[in-house]
């Protein structure tokens, strides 16, 4: 009884969704000769994932290495963005003068397509890999600054009044009031940022080459191997989902 209810409420809808997705895919594949169907894709996926960590030549490595390399780039770019973006967000949110000073610049730069930053990265760093990391950095820093700043601004004035009455130091205000109150906003920013970062790395690697899931897709496109491109879409999606889930779990631990 309990299981049936659980099944009906939690398992059935996603399963139905997946089944419908597969049916639509099959119909599309039937009507187009270039698009491979789910079974054909599954076959190549099994072949691909049976040996994800081979290293034949520098230009031919298993899909596992490609994913790990991309994750590494995202990790570095995203980590740097967090390191700089979050403190900046606090400052921008806390000090009105700086907020007014930076807000036009941030508003202007934020909507710029991440890939437009790639040539700048190449010019400055004179290497493809740092340029890719730079693109991740620049595209994931904005949500962190903006959300953190928003969290700081949304802080109820009462809290600050209490702090003033108790005559707390700026450091105490930060650790006891500001930080806990801003945490949920900050984590939203981080989640948005990691989503963007993962989104962007595929595109950036397509242009810069090297080992990574993005260039892997590009190379398979060069080969017009559509099955592998579809697999890559799933891989990118699933890895993105896992990153998101990981951050939600962290967020839950910190929410009050």
């Amino acid at each position, binding site marked *: 009884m309990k299981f049936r209810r659980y099944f009906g409420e939690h398992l059935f809808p996603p399963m139905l969704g997946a089944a419908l997705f597969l049916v639509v895919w099959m119909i599309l594949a039937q009507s187009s000769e*270039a698009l491979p169907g789910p079974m054909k894709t599954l076959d190549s996926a099994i072949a691909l994932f049976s040996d994800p960590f081979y290293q*034949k*030549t*520098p*230009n*031919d490595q298993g899909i596992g290495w490609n994913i790990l390399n991309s994750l590494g780039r995202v990790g570095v770019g995203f980590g740097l963005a967090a390191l700089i973006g979050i403190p900046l967000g606090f400052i921008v949110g806390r000090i009105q003068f700086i907020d007014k000073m930076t807000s036009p610049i941030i508003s202007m730069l934020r909507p710029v397509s991440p890939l437009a930053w790639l040539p700048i990265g*190449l010019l400055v760093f*004179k*290497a*493809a890999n740092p340029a890719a990391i730079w693109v991740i950095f620049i595209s994931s820093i904005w949500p962190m600054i903006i959300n953190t700043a928003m969290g700081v601004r949304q802080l109820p004035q009462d809290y600050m009044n209490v702090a003033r009455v108790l005559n707390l130091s700026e450091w105490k205000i930060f650790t006891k009031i500001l930080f806990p109150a801003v945490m949920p906003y900050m984590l939203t920013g981080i989640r948005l940022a990691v989503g963007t970062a993962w989104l962007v790395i595929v595109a950036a690697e*397509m*242009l*810069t*080459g*090297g080992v990574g899931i993005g*260039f892997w897709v*590009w*190379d*398979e*496109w*060069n*080969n*017009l191997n559509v099955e592998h491109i579809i697999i890559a879409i799933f891989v990118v999606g699933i890895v993105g989902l896992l990153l998101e889930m990981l951050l939600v779990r962290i967020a839950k631990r910190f929410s009050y």
Partner: protein
Amino acid sequence: MEASKIITSENFVSEQNSRRDFMKQTGAILGAAGIMSMVPMGTRAAAWAAGSDAPELKEVKVGFIPLTDCASLVIASVMKFDEKYGIKIVLSKEASWAGVRDKLANGELHAAHVLYGLVYGVHLGIGGQKKDMSVLMTLSNNGQAITLSSQLKDKGVTTGGALKKLVDAEKRDYTFAQTFPTGTHAMWLYYWLASHDINPLSDVKTITVPPPQMVANMRVGNMDGFCVGEPWNNRAIYDKVGFTAATTQDIWKDHPEKVLGCTAEFSQKYPNTSRALIMAVLEASKYIDEMSNRRKVAEIIADKSYVNCPLEVIDQRLEGKYEDGLGKKWNDPNYMKFYNDGAVNFPYLSDGMWFLTQHKRWGMLKEDPDYLAVAKKINQIDLYKQAASQVKVPVPKDVMRTSKLMDGTVWDGKDPKKYAASFKVRAS
């Protein structure tokens, strides 16, 4: 000051002669003339590496684009011709010509399989940030093609002349693609269109896109034609999206195509490495031009590490067996060549100058450059000659050659300014 360190061709030859004398003496002492013919390459390479002209770099990072004509670099690495000359070629597959350009300029790549015109463009600051460049050798002749879409075929267009009639009769946007603005494919495409009285700049739209996108766009009817290297033209036939309207050897028999390019800084700083690289690639080129080896070459380069393409798409045209997708089959005597007794590889000054004349013709260069001086600066004739003599590759006497192109004009490199100005169809 750098120049004083570079071995000039005169003392280089004498040095080499003395080495050969030494070898002869050793041979005489051993009293076994037969041994000489059995071991020469290896021993000579050892002597080369042990001398003061050992390669400065042990590992050379060489970029390539997955195309059939990257074969000589792949073979030099896979068949270990590189190790014979004391270097290890580390191949790096690149995403695009713009990527190759940037990585060469950054120093991330030491050298690369690159479009002839791209090197010249970068040297003059068109199609990229200005940077002094070098051409170490030519890698290939022939073997590119112009593909037109199946939609054009359905309208009865199978030749350039018919295309001209359609463009005149039916006004719409005609889209043609090439791979890099100053590159070879752009120049072949422009030359072919212009020879049929179609101005590539004003009568049609020409865009730069990567090859897979050309085929994808042609499939959905967004692309009328493109010029690109193999295997893409054969691929368009294989995928039934287009047909071969002209091969580039029809435009210019034995035209220069890809070169082994690097920055001027690299060739000046590492002359020994450059020579070792040339020698390894020359030997690979020889190997590929033995027709009996071509099947094996096709198998090697079709691998996922390199061109990443079904074997049957590569091997036909690599072996000179052409099919145009309209039902015509032929054995092309001017198939993609890598060696041709050294005629392919010599970096003729006239070849390099030709690209400059076309850049001028199409308005990429506003003024006439000093054609000869630029070509002399870029094409490393001395380095090439030194390397070629080491591996007994014949070197032509003249640094210019005379070629007759499809429209009957003759190019001999003698009066580039006049040649560049002589074309009727040009940038206005």
